[in-house]
């Protein structure tokens, strides 16, 4: 009997221990202050910057408290989707622009059209190409809060060693190829111009730049069919194949420029900040060269902010913060803190911002100057799948398993099937 008691008491102690461990922890004091949560994936320096701005806003507005919650880039979209499924969403979030079609169609995003129209200060100078990503059926569901684009990076040490002058970068496709061939050094494993040739969005969004530069488009204007199987598409793809055939690039993994194994690469604004601290060689930037008979173009990324708050008081409080965060003054400061690029003309052309660029990081200048030529990737829900099949077909052409025309035709059929 006594032994049995020991057994039972041991078990109950174990159970108590477990229950104690699992006791609910979240205690929220009832306060009149409005509590808002703001999800985003800004980390490192960007994370510190948004936290500093949120802290400052909280201090100046005692009636609200915004909690800035960092969620990793890979985790934010699934977390938002689950939150939407459960109806328990954060009040605000900033997400990758590529996710906007999905999120906007969830029906949980607060329409901003009227709020923007009736804002105290005019908000009409956001870049239209950026707002396209937030607009569905004439309703605005978000605002851009940062952007970036792709331009040319040049390894000045390799350039000089090959007898080229990094101060006079190539400006046309012909000059780009010429410089790349001259600078490539196969014996040392150095390529002239690095291309992204692995299947995936990396290939698609790099190739789109060349496509737009050649005068083509990725999808038809009404976003219902593929438009890349055109003269321009063929010209762009043949240019890549020519870069490979001429020895300017040899097929390999991505990342050669960072290892000092490529003279040039087209990469994003954000790499300026990363490479400024990490690369052991001299490098510079230039606008991405385009065909003599083509047009300047680039691709863009960045984050867009939106409101998911449920009741009116919280929606208003969230909008107040959003209006403050997207205002020219705060955006100028934000861009200086993070190195992100302006989303509003008022910021890009402001003297404060221009002076800052010249003084601190002139290598950002080509990116800012070219932002006006930036296109956005087509805002369709199936974009990820579409990008996968497109890049898969292109890879076959780059590896010589299909002709350029065959690859584009095959990709057109596959993409149209996805869009149907």
């Amino acid at each position, binding site marked *: 009997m006594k032994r*049995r008691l020991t057994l039972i008491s041991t078990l109950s102690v174990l159970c108590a221990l477990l229950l104690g461990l699992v006791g609910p922890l979240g205690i929220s004091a009832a306060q009149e202050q409005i509590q808002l949560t703001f999800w985003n994936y800004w980390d490192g320096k960007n994370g510190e910057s948004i936290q500093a701005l949120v802290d400052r806003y909280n201090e100046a507005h005692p009636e609200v408290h915004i909690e800035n919650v960092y969620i990793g*880039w890979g985790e934010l979209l699934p977390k938002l989707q689950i939150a939407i*499924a459960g109806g328990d969403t954060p009040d605000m979030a900033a997400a990758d622009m590529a996710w906007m079609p999905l999120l906007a169609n969830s029906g949980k995003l607060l329409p901003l059209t009227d709020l923007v129209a009736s804002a105290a200060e005019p908000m009409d100078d956001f870049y239209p190409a950026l707002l396209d990503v937030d607009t569905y059926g004439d309703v605005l569901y978000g605002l851009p809060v940062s952007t970036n684009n792709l331009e040319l990076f040049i390894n000045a040490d390799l350039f000089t060693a090959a007898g080229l002058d990094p101060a006079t970068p190539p400006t046309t496709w012909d000059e780009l190829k010429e410089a790349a061939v001259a600078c490539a050094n196969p014996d040392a494993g150095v390529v002239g111009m690095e291309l992204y040739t692995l299947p995936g969005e990396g290939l698609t969004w790099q190739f789109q730049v060349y496509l737009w530069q050649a005068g083509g488009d990725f999808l038809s204007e009404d976003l219902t069919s593929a438009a890349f199987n055109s003269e321009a598409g063929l010209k762009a793809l043949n240019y890549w194949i020519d870069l490979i055939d001429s020895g300017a690039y040899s097929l390999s993994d991505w990342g050669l420029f960072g290892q000092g194994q490529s003279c040039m690469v087209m990469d994003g604004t954000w790499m300026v900040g990363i490479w400024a601290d990490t690369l052991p060689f001299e490098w510079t930037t230039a606008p991405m060269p385009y065909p003599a008979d083509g047009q300047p173009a680039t691709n863009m990324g960045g984050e867009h902010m939106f409101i998911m708050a449920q009741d009116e008081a919280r929606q208003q409080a969230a909008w107040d913060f959003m209006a403050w965060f997207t205002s020219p003054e705060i955006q100028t400061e934000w861009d200086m803190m993070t190195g992100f690029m302006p989303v509003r003309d008022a910021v890009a052309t402001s003297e404060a911002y221009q002076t800052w660029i010249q003084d601190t990081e002139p290598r950002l200048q080509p990116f800012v100057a070219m932002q006006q030529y930036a296109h956005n990737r087509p805002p369709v829900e199936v974009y990820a799948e579409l990008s996968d099949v497109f890049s898969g077909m292109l890879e076959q052409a780059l590896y010589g398993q299909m002709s350029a025309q065959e690859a584009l035709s095959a990709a057109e059929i596959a993409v149209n099937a996805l869009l149907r």
Partner: protein
Amino acid sequence: MRKWFRPGHLLIHLTLLAGVSIMVIPYLWMVTLSLKPQELTYSPPYLFPNTFEWQNYAQAWQAASFSRYYWNSGLVTLGVTAGQIVLCSLAAYAFARLRFPGKEALFLLFLGTMMVPFHAILIPSYLIIQRLGWVDTYTAMILPRMFSAFGIFLMRQYYEGISTELDDAAMIDGCSRLGIWWRILLPLTGPGLATLGIFAFMFAWNEFLWPLVVINDPDMRTIQLGLAMFQGRYGTQWTLLMAGTVTATIPTILIFLFGQRWFIASIATTGLKG
């Protein structure tokens, strides 16, 4: 006299050595990366560490509230492991020893749940947790994980390997059902419990998706969620990520080292000797 050299052995050892390198190289690679200066992350790779930047570890630890994440992971892992050991072995005892209607069907049903991929029930599970108001609690991370079909199956196999004569003898001496489980079966299935414990520990410690879904509060994050934070949209801090990963794998390696002999030990039959 024993021959010290046999061609056959050489072949076996070469094969084993190849196997060992396949197992060890990723770990070595992780340690090497974790000890690299950050500016060399992009330079050509090498396998053996030749720089020792120990401050990567300090930096990784401070980059986020890692001590908090360790505490959370520790609590959750402990809760899940203890829960599985107690509940799975109790359930297994019922399935192995008791007679009740629908026993076989119920057991098959339990085994069947192993075939349902977790992703399929992710959203419904989250909705249940949310309606219960358990989002951002340890309960959400521990409770649904305290039982597993695998654990029940494993323990039932162990119990069935032990002769019922022992039960009968104990019952004649006046031992209760629970008493038989506690005094006879548990002590004889040490290796089984250890195996179950190790599996539960590894599973809970490495679990990513479920905590990701039920935890929003940064203070409630587990170590695996913390590690994912080093991978950003605009670049990954590889040296810090690897330093964090090395520290995160230490508990699992320790558990495995100490539990190894249990893994290898066979089912106890000592009770029937003599």
